[in-house]
């Protein structure tokens, strides 16, 4: 059965209203404050460390994103941790709040499809995060210029832009998850708790569990252990399992894009590096190729979660 009219009718109105709500909300202000303060602290430490070797590094701007100085992790690592928090904070009550406010049936009685409401809300959430990350990105570049005094090259800008795009895709995964949970659970508190639980599991517990599971699947070979090396089978399984976490995919993609010398994201065998000039940077396109599977993985994960939420929402009874 073909529906009449466009599924996108009303998306613009929903998008503008939700974006306005997001940007002016106290919740968003607090999340932005948390991210900016933490990221700036990491950036300050990175700038202090980089001032020591300004002349030696051709990719100084990129180092701002990746250099860490104890006790703070790098700027990218902090974002990898905080972007999910921001996305969950925006998405955990996207749909259930409409139920609880009793606005859903009134809104869906207007000449729009449910698709428009869902898509408009999702895009508004993603746009909010994108605006925040872009502001943060500009702030990093601006501070880098001021404190390091070295103008960034074209490739540095390209790579940092690739970082921005991948970070938005990464946020998309968590926003999709939060939206899915806001459809499944009528209580925003339950949705938020479940989302935070999944985030903590994938970010903190899974990196510890994945090697243990990999060792159970492929027990380590003592001969490799004697040489101080990982057993290849175990290492491959560990990496495979860890890639179930969006956090790991984001970390790997960032490594490829922001560290031009990165040639592979998996275990390296001797025959693979034969003839390679160690420490030589790869062209931007090659780095993107390395990060591509991880980026596609993030996009695929977003689509799967969004579609799951879409199907559930379409089938949901709207009474409130």
């Amino acid at each position: 059965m073909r529906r009449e009219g466009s599924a996108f009718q009303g998306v613009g109105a929903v998008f503008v209203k939700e974006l306005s709500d997001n940007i002016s909300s106290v919740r968003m202000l607090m999340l932005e404050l948390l991210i900016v303060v933490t990221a700036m602290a990491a950036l300050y430490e990175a700038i202090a460390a980089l001032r020591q070797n300004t002349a030696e590094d051709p990719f100084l701007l990129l180092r701002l994103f990746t250099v860490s100085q104890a006790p703070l992790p790098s700027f990218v690592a902090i974002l990898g941790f905080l972007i999910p928090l921001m996305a969950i904070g925006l998405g955990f009550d996207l749909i259930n709040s409409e139920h609880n406010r009793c606005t859903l049936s009134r809104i869906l009685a207007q000449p729009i499809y449910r698709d428009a409401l869902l898509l408009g809300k999702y895009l508004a959430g993603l746009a909010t995060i994108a605006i925040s990350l872009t502001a943060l990105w500009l702030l990093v570049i601006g501070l880098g210029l001021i404190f390091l005094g070295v103008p960034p090259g074209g490739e540095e800008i390209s790579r940092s832009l690739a970082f921005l795009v991948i970070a938005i895709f990464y946020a998309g995964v968590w926003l999709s998850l939060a939206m899915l949970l806001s459809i499944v659970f009528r209580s925003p508190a339950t949705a938020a708790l479940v989302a935070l639980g999944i985030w903590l599991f994938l970010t903190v517990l899974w990196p510890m569990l994945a090697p243990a599971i990999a060792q159970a699947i492929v027990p380590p070979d003592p001969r490799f252990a004697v040489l101080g090396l990982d057993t290849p089978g175990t290492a491959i399984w560990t990496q495979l399992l860890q890639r179930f976490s969006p956090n790991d995919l984001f970390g790997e993609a960032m490594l490829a894009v922001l560290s031009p010398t990165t040639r592979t994201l998996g275990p390296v065998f001797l025959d693979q590096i034969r003839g390679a000039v160690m420490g030589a940077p790869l062209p931007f396109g090659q780095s993107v190729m390395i990060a591509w599977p991880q980026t596609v993985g993030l996009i695929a994960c977003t689509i799967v979660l969004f579609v799951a939420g879409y199907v559930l929402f379409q089938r949901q009874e709207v009474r409130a």
Partner: protein
Amino acid sequence: MSEQQNHTAATRPEAVIAARDLTKRYGKTSVVDAINFDIAKGEVFGLLGPNGAGKTTTILMMLGLTEISAGRVSVLGFDPARQPLQVKRRVGYLPDAVGFYDHLTAVENLAYAAKLMGLGVAERSRRIAAALTCVRLLDVADKRVATFSRGMRQRLGLAEIIVKRAEIAILDEPTSGLDPQATIEFLDLIRELKAEGVTVLLSSHMLDQVQRVCDRVALFRVGKIAMMGSVAELSVQVLGAGFVVEVEADGAGIARRLAAIPGVGNVETLADDRFRMTADRDVRADAARAVVAANGALRRLSVDEPSLEAIYARCFQVPPSGGVRDAA
């Protein structure tokens, strides 16, 4: 085929809503069970019944907000399942618990709904101002909805229907929780909608209020329409008579003259000069003429209109007959 099915087999000439064997099932339970009804253009039609009788589910099916399990419903000639946008463009809906965005003002809430309706900026502003004037909320147009009482929210919901210029207004329990004054004002607004040619479908269990505004009602019981018709028709059918008129007058042969009035079913002589008539309409004018014709002196004339409450109570005491009775 039941009596009601016979009646509705051919849609009324100006029926704007027509339901045929409309059914909603959850698993094996039918919450709306093969109901049939027609609602004419400009009519105020009441859906009555206890909570859980299937009134709201019927409304949701009309709006395409829940799937129809069997049967069909036509709203202004459109199928809500296949042409939901056409239906929603023409039908305004005020849910039982109407919700607004509390952080937005009345105007902003209406503007958002108007944008979803696809109205342009100028048209939007014009219609919103007119609607807020109509529901008497213009003086609080720029106040946040968080500060509004339930009655004001209900009126704002009605303003949304006015902004849409809906041909049909579906109001689900619109007066529940309102104080008496707010209820009176709201019922006046419903009458104004009717005067402007809007067809109103009103779901409620506030029987006296329904009686005040509805032209016809359908009584729901466990997913079926137990009875349908005007209050007078239902009264005759359920109570045996509709209007009870009491006459106090002296004169020769008054009882005989009163009994001869068309529509009068029974005349009871309470005293030499007091008579009680049961009729299927208000026959006070005819009774007065009969007294005058008998050269009598009329001292008192009163009428007890049929009570929907009495009909409802009687209807829900007896088990359903299986088919639906249509008094129309």
